[in-house]
């Protein structure tokens, strides 16, 4: 059996990682909540963002954290353009088409990454990648602490934007009442594109926060998206609070099952939760009833 200190330390580290998972899930749940589609390209876009961080670091020498504001804006624009110019027009207003278009996009993006970077797994080392904070008896990876702080700050900013700004309110209005929103002069196509852009901006921030400790390859997205999807289901489809809380829970569960079952089985806890949620509370913690 492990000592209490080891368990608590693993729990805290799990929560820290969970906060970044939550940010990935946030983008997914936001797009689902407003456009009512699962964005299958979410993982591939995350991988693309991670490669962008890596490349910028190697070419320009910018620290991943310094890249956050730039990459966020670029990925917002990318997401906006994708929805407005590709996904929206190609779907002709049918949800099942949107699914296929995002699936197709993910294949295109992954293969572009493969062609550009090869299939090797890469990582980015910073001065703080292996540094730790000593908090009492616990050792916490600095990059994880920064990552969690950045993820929570981003989530708080997004929440402020959605609850205070006119555009944010328009997004929430479109999520529940498209026709009612149109009749107030809200341009639904624009709101969809802004939402998709915000989802991509979340990914850009997550990529900057992940890279100091996590590796990247063109297929990495699917690993995160499986976890993110579990978080979204656990938290309730479309719920932002649910995604945040779900992320923290999943991070803790992953860390605990890793500790007790061994690293290779760490993710088993996540999928047990996934199945249990679907069996016992399909609407998730904060989900609306269908």
């Amino acid at each position: 059996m492990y000592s209490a200190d080891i368990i608590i330390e693993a729990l805290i580290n799990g929560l820290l990682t969970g906060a970044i998972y939550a940010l990935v899930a946030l983008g997914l749940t936001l797009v689902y909540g407003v456009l009512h589609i699962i964005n299958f390209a979410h993982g591939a876009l995350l991988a693309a963002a991670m490669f962008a961080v890596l490349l910028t670091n190697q070419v320009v020498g910018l620290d991943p954290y310094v890249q956050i504001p730039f990459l966020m804006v670029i990925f917002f624009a990318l997401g906006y353009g994708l929805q407005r110019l590709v996904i929206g027009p190609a779907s002709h207003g049918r949800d099942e088409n949107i699914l296929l278009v995002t699936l197709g996009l993910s294949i295109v993006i992954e293969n572009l990454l493969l062609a550009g970077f090869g299939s090797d797994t890469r990582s980015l080392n910073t001065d703080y990648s292996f540094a730790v904070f000593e908090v009492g008896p616990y050792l916490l990876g600095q990059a994880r602490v920064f990552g969690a702080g950045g993820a929570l700050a981003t989530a708080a900013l997004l929440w402020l934007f959605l609850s205070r700004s006119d555009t944010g309110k328009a997004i929430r209005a479109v999520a529940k009442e498209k026709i009612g929103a149109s009749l107030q002069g809200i341009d639904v196509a624009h709101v969809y594109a802004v939402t998709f852009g915000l989802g991509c901006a979340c990914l850009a921030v997550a990529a900057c926060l992940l890279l100091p400790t996590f590796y990247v390859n063109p297929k990495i997205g699917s690993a995160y998206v499986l976890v993110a999807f579990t978080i979204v289901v656990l938290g309730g489809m479309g719920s932002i609070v649910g995604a945040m809380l779900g992320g923290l829970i999943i991070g803790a569960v992953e860390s605990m099952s890793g500790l007790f079952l061994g690293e290779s089985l760490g993710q088993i806890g996540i999928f047990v939760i996934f199945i249990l949620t679907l069996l016992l509370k399909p609407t998730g913690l904060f989900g609306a009833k269908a």
Partner: protein
Amino acid sequence: MLEVTGLVAGYGSTEILRGIDLRVEAGEIVAVLGSNGVGKTTLNMVLSGLIEPRGGDIRFDGRSLKGTSPAEIVAAGLIQVPEGRRIFPNMGVRENLELGSYGRARKNRAKNLEKVFDTFPRLKERIGQFAGTLSGGEQQMLAIGRGLMAEPKLLILDEPSLGLSPLLVEEMFALIERLNGAGLAIMLVEQNVVQSLELASRAYVVENGAVALSGDAATVAADPELRRTYLGL
């Protein structure tokens, strides 16, 4: 102010509107009457730009609305309070009203919010509540209040009395009269023939996607065919 000529529209292969002609002048209440399924709501959706017309023309304030987006139509001052209210259930009363000024009169938001609360003191009492938890009558007030936030030149009300108790229906029609008294042009789309004709200056009766009867409200009310069909007399 609003002039519709030969309007044709539909969904897929189904034609709903088969050449509608009507007009609304400044300061009027015009009733558009007809039973369920004659195309009244489709007409409103076309006027608000949510469905593209297949033929005919819509002119508002001297310019054609054909090919304009819903947002541009709102910006021009043609505001619709839709059937079924279509308020934002997941948002508070204040946020619903604020979004009423999303596409028009945003600068006057604070002032108009006060005006709406003066008109509907009930909404002020409910200000922090989620719109989805309001009663049917309160939701209808909210939908109309949201419409007024845009400082409409012409307000289209689609079935404002639907689902309300007789007492609330009285209240609703009194309110419509008050709004019109303040100079607002209103197109009242209703199944409630008797009360609508008492209020309106002119009326159109729509049947099967076309105007079957039109004229002064009094003339329309006296029409023997209308009395037989809608009033059972």
